[in-house]
């Protein structure tokens, strides 16, 4: 299983993504710059958090039109796994790989804390190792985490079970239907606002994020019959 972490100017979660894959899967990761034009060697593509291109215009907007994103779209169309976390999620919506858009947090404050997230769908390639309706602890760190979509889109997301994670208890940013993470219709592209890669060791406060990565490996092994 070959894993790529896409690096944009302003990405700051690349190293954490890399460490998480190393720790959880004992697997090596390649960094791929936003100017590159080939992802054909990779099975799993990770878009880390940060503030790509300074989040000027809108978070993720400029990253979404870089050369590498054409390749990410191609990979997604081929059924490869694409995971965008935080700013990575924003890039995926701006690129049109996931529906909806992001607004400033309802209370205009950058929030960084551990929150409770409910696993709504444990049948995606990213959530196989979770239990349905399970409550997990993951950190968030964002100022524009307020997921917005039209009612019709929300209905479609709910009908197709595309809502994977929801905030439980408190909704930290005002997201529609407390959405914290969604997949595309095919299920191979996941965007999530909380950071699983920052919840992989006890000393980080939670290990619940590990299972996003172990799920990916399990899915890949089932599909390819190998490591």
């Amino acid at each position, binding site marked *: 299983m070959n894993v790529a972490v896409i690096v944009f100017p302003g990405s700051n979660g690349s190293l954490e993504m890399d460490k998480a894959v190393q720790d959880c899967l004992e697997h090596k990761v390649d960094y791929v710059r936003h100017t590159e034009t080939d992802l054909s060697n990779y099975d799993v593509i990770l878009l880390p958090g940060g503030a790509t291109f300074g989040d000027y*215009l809108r978070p993720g*907007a*400029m990253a979404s*039109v870089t050369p590498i994103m054409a390749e990410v779209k191609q990979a997604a169309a081929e059924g490869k796994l694409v995971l965008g976390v935080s700013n990575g999620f924003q890039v995926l*919506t701006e690129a049109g790989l996931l529906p909806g*858009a992001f*607004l400033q947090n*309802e209370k205009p404050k950058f929030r960084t804390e551990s929150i409770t997230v409910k696993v709504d769908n444990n049948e995606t390639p990213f959530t196989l190792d979770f239990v349905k309706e399970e409550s997990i602890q993951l950190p968030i760190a964002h100022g524009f985490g307020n997921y917005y*979509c039209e009612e019709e889109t929300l209905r479609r997301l709910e009908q197709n079970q595309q809502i994977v994670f929801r905030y439980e208890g408190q909704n930290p940013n005002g997201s529609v239907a407390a959405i914290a993470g969604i997949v595309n219709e095919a299920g191979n592209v996941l965007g999530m606002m909380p950071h699983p890669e920052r919840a992989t060791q006890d000393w980080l406060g939670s290990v619940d994020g590990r299972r996003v990565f172990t799920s990916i490996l399990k899915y890949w092994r089932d599909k390819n019959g190998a490591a």
Partner: protein
Amino acid sequence: MFKAIVYVTLRESVIDPAGSAVKTSLHSLGHDEVGDVRIGKYIELEINLKDRQAAEERAQEMCQKLLANPAIEDYRYELQEV
């Protein structure tokens, strides 16, 4: 050559937390006459084309593909010959 002045605003249906915060500040200055406040973006573009029609089409395309996100934002622009 043309100059395009692009205004990007949040759609009416979308809540604007930054605008609300500014409204609160204006009220605290005693400007109780202020109702709703909305904050948007102002973008100036130099467009190096001679033909107005072409400049218009290019500006339109830039707005749709990058400068505004139709899921949450509206845009309008003015084209000035310079």
